[in-house]
């Protein structure tokens, strides 16, 4: 038997919002990919899509979208994938993860340090 991975909490709702889909390319949206709306919601649009377009008028990380929608990250990624495919959002991806055992470059870290000191 093949079980849907998204079958916890409120399975019916999760099934409906994703149209029964449960697979997504997990590498397409990192937790901290910043999402930006490129249009306003239109009448008849799925309510979750409307909510995302409203949230992301200013850049909003995938993980924040997930928390605000109260939907698991997996489901959020599917919804974002829909909007990205139709050009309704754009995604500002983080720098590619450094290879295993590699470190971020010192120039980037210096900027992080400056930012923290200025808090």
């Amino acid at each position, binding site marked *: 038997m093949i*079980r849907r991975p998204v079958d916890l909490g409120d399975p019916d709702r999760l099934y409906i919002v994703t149209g029964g889909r449960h697979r997504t390319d997990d590498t397409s949206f990192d*937790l*901290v990919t*910043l999402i930006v709306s490129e249009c306003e919601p239109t009448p008849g649009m799925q309510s979750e899509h409307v909510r995302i377009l409203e949230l992301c008028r200013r850049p909003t990380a995938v993980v924040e979208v997930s928390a605000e929608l109260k939907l*698991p990250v997996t489901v959020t990624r599917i919804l974002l994938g829909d909007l990205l495919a139709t050009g309704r959002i754009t995604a*500002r991806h983080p720098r590619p993860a450094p290879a295993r055992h590699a470190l971020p470059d010192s120039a980037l870290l210096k900027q992080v340090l400056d*930012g*923290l000191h200025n*808090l």
Partner: protein
Amino acid sequence: MDSTISEPDARVPLGAAADTGLKIVIVGGFGVGKTTLVRSVSEIRPLNTEEVMTQAGVGIDENAKVSEKNTTTVAFDFGRISLNDRMVLYLFGAPGQERFWFLWDRLFSGTLGAVVLVDTRRVADSWYAIDRLEHHGTPFVVAVNRFSDAASHSLEELREALSLSDDVPMLECDARQRESSKSVLIGLVNHLYDLSMAREMTP
């Protein structure tokens, strides 16, 4: 801390120019103060969400317990710090217990580094996290949360109890205090910076 009650729905949006998301993971046992630390430095009230992990994603940590179950839901919380107009740092509080560890490759890949938050009364809770960070090659510092520390152990005693090598920085903090939590993050990034500089100097 004070914003928890007032305006729970008020969102603080990022600036329009924000384009680089960064991560730091705070790892530790239950009740060690991860959320407290995140809250004390975050510009937003900590939010939480969950990820549903499928068995296929379990990978190396697959074990008997997991194979009985096709999915696992893991909740985690996070906060946010705008570093400048473009860079935003997300702080993730992550459970350090063995059964959550498969999360790391999937969720927290690309993290700059990690803070292991230690409660001196439950030092053993940190062993597994430290072991895995070393295994993954994720740079980290150890922060001892002193808020509850009645019988104080010296950092050197703790270093020994944790079997921590000398090159891992240890810090003391009070996770309730913003300045203290901030200094933990600065301690981590200083460590990363030193490692990175050393790497760049090596021909």
